[in-house]
C-alpha cells in the first residue's frame, strides 16, 4: 500500500470504522482513540496490507481494539443503562427507529457487532467471519438469532402501540 492509497483509506473507511465503534461502545472519545489506533496499525503495516483488504483489516483491528477496550473498561452495560433514554414502550409517538436502536443496544456485543457490520457496512457472512474471527456458520446463526430477537422486540412494541 502506498501513501496515497493509505490516504484514500482514511477518506473512505474512517467514517465507517468510527460509526461501527461508536455504535458499539457508545463513547465518542474512546471510539476516536480506537479508530486512531486502527489507522496507526494500518500505517505501520501498510507494506503488508493490500489496498483491497484494507477495509477488512481496519475493521478487524478496530473490532479487536474495541473488545479489549470493553474488557478493560467494562462500562458498556452502565453506558447502556445511562446513555439511552428510557422511553415508555406504550407511548405511541416513539419512533420505530429509536426502538430498534434500543433493541440493538440490548443485544450482546457479538450479536450487536454482527448486526452493525451486516447492516451498516454490508459485509458478507464470510467477511464478517474474518473480521470477528468466527466461522461463517457461526455468523449466520448468531445473526439470525439477533434478527429474531429484534423482530420479537419490535413486534412486542407494535402490539402494545396498536
Amino acid at each position, binding site marked *: 500500500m502506498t*501513501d496515497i492509497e493509505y490516504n484514500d483509506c482514511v477518506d473512505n473507511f474512517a467514517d465507517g470504522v*468510527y460509526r461501527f465503534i461508536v455504535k458499539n461502545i457508545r463513547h465518542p472519545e474512546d471510539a476516536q482513540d480506537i479508530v*486512531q489506533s486502527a489507522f*496507526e496499525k494500518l500505517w505501520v503495516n501498510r507494506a503488508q496490507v493490500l489496498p483491497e483488504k484494507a477495509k477488512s483489516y481496519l475493521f478487524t483491528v478496530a473490532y479487536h481494539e474495541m473488545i479489549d477496550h470493553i474488557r478493560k473498561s467494562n462500562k458498556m452495560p452502565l453506558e447502556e443503562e445511562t446513555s439511552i433514554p428510557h422511553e415508555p414502550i406504550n407511548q405511541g409517538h416513539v419512533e420505530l427507529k429509536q426502538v430498534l436502536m434500543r433493541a440493538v443496544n440490548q443485544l450482546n456485543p457479538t450479536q450487536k457487532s454482527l448486526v452493525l457490520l451486516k*447492516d451498516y457496512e454490508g459485509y458478507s457472512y464470510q467477511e464478517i467471519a474474518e473480521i470477528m474471527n468466527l466461522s461463517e456458520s457461526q455468523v449466520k446463526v448468531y445473526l*439470525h438469532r439477533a434478527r429474531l430477537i429484534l*423482530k420479537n422486540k419490535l413486534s412486542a412494541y407494535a402490539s402494545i402501540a396498536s
Partner: protein
Amino acid sequence: MQLNESTYETIFLLYIDNELSHKERLEVEAFIVDNPGYALEMEALKATVLNVENIPYAFKENLKHQLVETSLETLEEDWNTNYASVLKEEVQKIPGLSTSFKHSLKKATVSEGIMIQPLRFNQHKFTYAAIAACLMVFIGYQQLTKSQLSDSQVSSSSATNSMVSNSLATNSNIVLVPNVSSASTKSEVTIISKTNKQELVNNIKPITKTKKEILILEKLNTSELEIAKTNRNASIAITEPTPNNSILNTQGIITKLPTSYNNPITIDAMVENTTEERVTTSYELIETEDPNRTISIANFEIDGAAFRGITRRVSAILKRNKSEKEK
C-alpha cells in the same frame, strides 16, 4: 431452495441479509406473492435491518497528517530549491569561515608533536648552587663578624670620643658658643675645639650614609649634661677648625629624647674609623631605670660593593658552567 413453513424464516433472513443469489431472491418474492400471509413476516424481518447513518469521523486530517515522509520530501525539495543556495552564499560571505575553516578541517598531516623532557636532576647545577650558597653564607658570616668587630672598635672609638669630649670639656680651648642663628627658638651650642686633630680629619672620608648614634650620657661632663638637660631639643655641633677654616663634618647632634628614658641623650657622631670596613653600623643604647641594665639596638648594613662582588662570583661560576655545558 425449498420454501415451506419450516424453512421460510431462514430463507427470509438470508434474503434480508443479501446472502441469496438473484435467482433465489426472485423465488422468495414469488413465494410471498403466492402466499400473502408470509408478507407480514417478511416485513417484520425487514424492520430489523438498521438504516445507514452518516456519522463522520472528525479527525481525518489528523490521520493524514501522520504522513510525515511525503511532507518531508516536499520540504526537502523546497529547501534545496529556495533556501540552500541562499544559505550557501551567506556562508561564503563570512570571512574566514569558507576558506580557512574548511582548510583547518581538511588537515591532511598530523601536526608535529612537542616532546616534553622529564625534569631530571642535574648534579652539576646542584653542586654549583650548593657551593654558591655556602659561599654566600660564609661571606655573610664574615661580614657579620666584621661588623661585630667594628662594634667593638666603635665602642672603643666612642670611648676615645668620650675621652676627647672629656678632654674637650676640661680643655680651656673649648668654647661653647650659643648658636642663635636658627630661626626657631631652639638654642644650639657649638663646641669648638682648638686642638689639632687635622690628621683625624684628613682620614675622614665623606660618607653620607654612615651614622652612629652613641649614647654618651655618662661620658659627657656635667656642664654638657646640664646643657643637654636644659635643652632637650638642642643640638650640639662639634666643629673643628680646618686649615682653611672650614667646619669639620664631624657633628654631635643631641637628638630629641622622650621623657621616659630617664634623660638619655643620644648623639649622632660620624665615626670615621669604620671607613676601611665600608660597613655602616648604627647603634642605639637606651638606659633603663636599672643602672646595670642597658638596652642596645644595633643594625648593620652590608656594603653594596661587597655584595656585588659575591653576586659577580656566583654569576661567573654559573656562566662558566653554562659555557662548559654548551661546549
